[in-house]
């Protein structure tokens, strides 16, 4: 070991070339190319989903409506693309990114390959927060059958997001306490299922006693949808997601150290408790925002981080944070397209589409976990 570092010219040259050969040749370029490719796919899917719905609009018209002059396309097409479908598409991309990052944070903090907002009951916690706000807050008399959008508009988006994030954080805190007691990852997942049912039951009780006009809106929301967000609410949603993603980005180094285990991370000088709290707060904001604006959407949170690791061939959070944002956006846009059932006026619940993509990934991960143990 030449730790002293004082060497002659030959040794210095040797050191430099060794440092340069650090990564296998081309690895960095390949990872960069894959990230760029993911971004391009997300963009293409975005344009497709702007055009591909009950009224089909060809991609050139979509692009013209977005970036062309006001008279480039028919005014109604312009309105549909810009005011109805664009917020929906952006919502889908944001939901995917948010769930991907939330899943990544939770998988690292819990050291559990199947941890996600959905599997550990965090989404249910957020639902409870939303239910408490939406079902119990006072409502003016004018609305005889308010949609969820109207309810949320009435109550303030921020209130709903804060309620959802607090609900999510509450469940996360409980789950982390439980996970510290039982080291077995499978038991933690089972506890997550139980926690989900428990919190879900509380929501059901709330719904049962709530005003009948509101419950229908609440149940519809529970199926998951990208259509609830409009230009008025999008900034709040986008801001919440941005806060969560930036939080995750700020924690990449402690997250990487946590891959070795908490005691090892601490021995490396990482402030484990603070980092863990920060990561869970970020995950809560992300999961809470998604639940508040699009409903409890399952499976994306599990699948996205695994696909990002596999595509980029790395466990490094410096790459996995942008990677999960990109993969999440791609996957959620694909789910949105699937849910739209092009050519018909029907909308599948986004949850169903997400499960179609996400469940197979979860199954593969489960089978691998069995091999590992």
């Amino acid at each position, binding site marked *: *070991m030449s730790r002293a570092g004082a060497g002659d010219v030959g040794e210095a040259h040797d050191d430099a070339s060794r440092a340069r050969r650090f990564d296998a040749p081309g690895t960095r370029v390949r990872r960069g190319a894959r990230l760029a490719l993911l971004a391009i796919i997300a963009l293409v899917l975005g344009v497709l989903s702007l055009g591909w719905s009950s009224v089909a609009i060809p991609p050139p018209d979509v692009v013209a409506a977005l970036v062309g002059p006001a008279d480039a396309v028919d005014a109604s097409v312009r309105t549909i693309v810009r005011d109805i479908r664009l917020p929906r598409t952006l919502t889908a991309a944001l939901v995917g990114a948010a769930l991907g990052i939330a899943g990544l944070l939770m998988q690292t903090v819990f050291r559990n390959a199947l941890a996600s907002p959905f599997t550990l009951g965090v989404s249910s916690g957020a639902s409870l927060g939303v239910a408490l706000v939406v079902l119990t807050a006072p409502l003016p008399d004018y609305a005889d059958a308010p949609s969820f959008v109207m309810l949320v508009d009435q109550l303030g988006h921020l209130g709903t997001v804060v309620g959802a994030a607090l609900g999510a954080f509450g469940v996360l805190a409980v789950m982390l306490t439980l996970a510290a007691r039982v080291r077995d990852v499978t038991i933690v997942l089972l506890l997550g299922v139980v926690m989900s049912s428990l919190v879900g039951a509380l929501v059901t009780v709330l719904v049962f006693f709530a005003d009948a006009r509101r419950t229908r809106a609440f149940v519809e929301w529970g199926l998951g949808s990208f259509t609830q967000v409009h230009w008025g609410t999008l900034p709040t949603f986008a801001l919440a997601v941005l806060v969560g993603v930036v939080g995750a980005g700020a924690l990449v*180094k402690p997250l990487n150290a946590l891959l*070795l*285990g908490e005691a090892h991370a601490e021995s490396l000088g990482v402030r484990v408790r603070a980092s863990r709290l920060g990561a869970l707060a970020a995950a809560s904001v992300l999961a809470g925002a998604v639940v508040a604006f699009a409903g409890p959407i399952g499976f994306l949170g599990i699948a996205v981080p695994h696909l990002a690791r596999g595509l980029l061939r790395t466990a490094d959070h410096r790459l996995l944070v942008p990677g999960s944002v990109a993969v999440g956006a791609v996957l959620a846009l694909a789910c949105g397209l699937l849910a739209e059932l092009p050519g018909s006026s029907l909308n599948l619940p986004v949850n169903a589409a997400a499960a179609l993509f996400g469940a197979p990934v979860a199954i593969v991960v489960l089978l691998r976990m069995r091999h590992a143990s």
Partner: protein
Amino acid sequence: MSQPDAAVDLPALRADGLAIGHGRRPILEPLDVGLPAGQLVCLLGANGAGKSTLIRTLGGLLPPLAGQVWLGDAPLRRLAPAVRARRLGLVLTERPSVGHLTARDLVALGRVPHTDWSGALRDADRRAVADALEAVGATALADRDVLTLSDGERQRVQVARALAQTPRVLLLDEPTAFLDLPTRVALVLLLRRLAHEEGLAVLLAVHDLDLALRVADRLWLIGASSDGETASMRVGAPEDLVLSGAIARAFDRGGMAFDPYEGSFRPPRGVRGTARIVDAAEADPLVVRWTSRALVRAGYLVAAEADDAAVRVWCGGAPDGSWRIAVGDEAMRDAESLGALVAAVI
């Protein structure tokens, strides 16, 4: 602890009236002990004696109940975590849990206390990682996924990770626990080389008494606690601790006894009576030795001069050069292997 070397050089790590434990009651008498640079010290003790607690307290992961740990000339608890991590490396039993983490990535995490907020590596960091991999002979493993490494390979990579921190002190908690014997020996010899050649102070908690007695420069031995008394730790050269009987006192329990001649454990002997190897001086010493081991295993006390021995054995006494046995007054029998011999005398 009054050797001249300890008096001249400040130990790399020193416990000063250190009381350790998880609750309020210390599990050991207060410790005053130094870990000298350039030495491999093995920490021995029965399961649950407090080896892990001591390692974690010395490593700054657990607060001491009383007293102080000194890292060089600085109190450990006063050091910023990153500064501590540049001077002291820990290898614990936790395993990495995700895939797509290469051995090189894992070793690069040893640079965490040296890098900026994002953990980006500079050339100096990459050199340190390459050097650490080379020092443990794991350069060829660099691109392997950590999940595909064997237990021994993974532990070597973990040692490289700790080395990449460029510490002066290395504390390891049972890194050899799941390794087969050759891998275990190789890892311990690697640690001894790092201590002797790189001047590291190495503290290694191990189960393997036999190995510790053969390679450690010094032992820290946590004794068994008896009723109402707090256990204490003895420090000394392995041979001194054997001769003083400290090892035997720390480990004797449940039928197994420490044999100070062998430096290892053996089952209680003499249950079946005495056995004698007749004319042992004329036979191959190696054959005599293992014949004796076989008789001990079968429960006999082997004595050279016992005239009234229940079993007498001649090595090479049979016409074909195998064993001849006389049990009591019965007729002589031949055994073609030691397995057959044991079967005949039980």
